[in-house]
């Protein structure tokens, strides 16, 4: 026996199913809806059906696949929920159920103790690298610290380290076949930066003036501290509750497209995400969390109990993308005990066609893991360039 004979023997272990049985198993029929992906344990779905099941399957096949196309029948063989829409109504109830205790924990946080809001996080983004027919995913990773001095109105940041890692350890053989690289130069054709980034610096940058983006607008440090905690009032401030005329709506839609958003709910979700790491008073933070839970398209991140690094976490999710761009679930995860933000993670639901050779459903293709977000009196020794009034 040669190697092909051995391979054919492996194939012989898997019998060929009949078309009737496959029509039932797959749920496919001509002109039908895109079948929902079925995720289920192998043990619950035998590859072969019993004899009686095959007879039933044949009857079902004859009707569904070969039957008249003008009869509209309930979908009795498809399984699983339909693919979620990226801008559907979400599930405000489920999101609120998750966020209510998180908001309560946030409201109970200690009052600010210090003039400096300090954050420390690790940021990673996945890229497909390697030979065209054997690509694998790696993260471009960097660690960042950020200080915001509320009284001075200044902020500064530092990148203590940069790194890379495989998206999935199962891709290690592919990485080894590629020669086990530890650096990938910039690829302008793929619009990919060098990995790891060379941004690792020599200490914090000079401090400059900072505004705090809050929804569609921005606020001065004092305005941020004087925000109302009421979610309805916060919504008005976030989204600038002025009535829009037709011209303003047209400008807003053009701006959406220019900024890369495909809908207003998507844009608002992204803007609110940025708001969550601002130095908010505890009760205002709780109010913002309630706003988040009630936003269109936001739902509970079901089944999520920890963040990417394994810390206990709960949170909400928002569906992004479409068949062309790829479908993703953006999750914002919180520490249920303190109400602080743990992480923001973008999870592949269905990769885009151009990335499907290295990216799989379940991959986290972008993440920001927060190690710390706290008040302190420590301010780095940096040159300061405050905004001078003319």
């Amino acid at each position, binding site marked *: 026996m040669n*190697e092909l004979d051995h391979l054919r023997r492996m194939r012989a272990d898997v019998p060929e199913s009949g078309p009737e049985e496959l029509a039932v198993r797959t749920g496919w029929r001509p002109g039908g809806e895109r079948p929902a992906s079925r995720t289920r344990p192998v043990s619950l779905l035998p590859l072969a059906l019993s004899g009686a099941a095959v007879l039933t399957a044949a009857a079902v096949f004859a009707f569904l696949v070969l039957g008249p196309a003008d009869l509209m029948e309930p979908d009795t063989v498809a399984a699983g929920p339909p693919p979620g829409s990226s801008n559907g109504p979400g599930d405000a109830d489920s999101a609120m159920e998750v966020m209510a205790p998180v908001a309560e924990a946030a409201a109970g946080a200690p009052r600010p103790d210090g003039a400096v809001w300090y954050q420390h996080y690790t940021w990673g983004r996945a890229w497909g690298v390697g030979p065209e027919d054997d690509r694998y995913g790696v993260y471009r990773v960097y660690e960042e610290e950020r200080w915001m001095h509320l009284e001075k109105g200044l902020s500064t940041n530092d990148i203590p380290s940069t790194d890379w890692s495989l998206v999935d350890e199962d891709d290690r053989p592919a990485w080894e076949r590629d020669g086990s690289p530890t650096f990938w130069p910039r690829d302008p054709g793929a619009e990919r930066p060098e990995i790891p980034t060379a941004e690792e610096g020599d200490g914090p940058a000079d401090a400059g003036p900072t505004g705090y983006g809050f929804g569609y607008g921005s606020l001065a440090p004092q305005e941020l501290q004087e925000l109302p905690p009421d979610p309805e009032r916060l919504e008005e401030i976030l989204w600038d509750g002025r009535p829009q005329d037709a011209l303003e709506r047209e400008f807003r839609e053009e701006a959406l497209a220019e900024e890369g958003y495909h809908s207003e709910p998507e844009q608002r979700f992204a803007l609110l995400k940025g708001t969550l790491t601002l130095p908010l008073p505890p009760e205002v933070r709780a109010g913002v969390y309630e706003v988040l839970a009630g936003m269109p398209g936001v739902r509970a991140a079901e089944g999520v109990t920890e963040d990417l690094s394994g810390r206990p976490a709960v949170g909400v999710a928002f569906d992004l993308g479409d068949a062309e761009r790829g479908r993703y679930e953006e999750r914002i995860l919180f520490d249920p005990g303190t109400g602080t933000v743990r992480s923001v993670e973008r999870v592949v639901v269905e990769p885009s066609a151009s990335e499907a050779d290295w990216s799989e459903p379940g991959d986290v293709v972008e993440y920001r893991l927060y190690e710390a977000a706290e008040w302190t009196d420590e301010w780095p020794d940096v040159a300061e360039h405050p905004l001078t009034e003319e």
Partner: protein
Amino acid sequence: MPSTAFRAAASGGPEPDAAVIRRSLDEPTRFGEIFRRHAPALHRYAARRLGGPDADDVVAETFHIAFRKRHRYDPGRPDARPWLWRIAANLVRRHHRTETRHYRALARTGVDPVLEGFADRAAERVDATSLSGSLAAALARLSKGDRDTLLLVAWGELTYEETALVLGVPVGTVRSRLHRARKRVRAALAATTDATAATTPTKEEDHR
């Protein structure tokens, strides 16, 4: 191996795939005949690589895509097999890591995860021999391109020309990838055979 559809047409049997697809433009349910002809072989190939549930998804998605794109099918190609297999091959490739894990599990434990849905098959295959384990380990280490090429030929029973069409590469590339993949698999099998022979007493030793 010519497809059933092409062979049938040549002998005056059922109409070629291209004709069925053309009819389905006016009568969508006709496309069910394409499913009937090709889904079983596609599913078996995908199931051997990924296991039952993922194979179901691959087949469902393959025919969903094919149905949506049937208006673009080239009527000059009577046999739809390369077209369908190309769609399926791209979908199978998305499960590359799942497949690699299956092979590693087989290599490590001797249990074939793909066959777990087959109670009767598990009983028939008393073991996975050490050769199966070595074969699986070799498959796990192949590049995506080499693995696709080897298995389209070995498990899909496609010709070199069909494989080239499915993968969108020249036939020469198919030959070189196949040569490389077979060489690696052969080396893995030979290493296992040598190891087995080294631990098996020879006749001379037995008669000592």
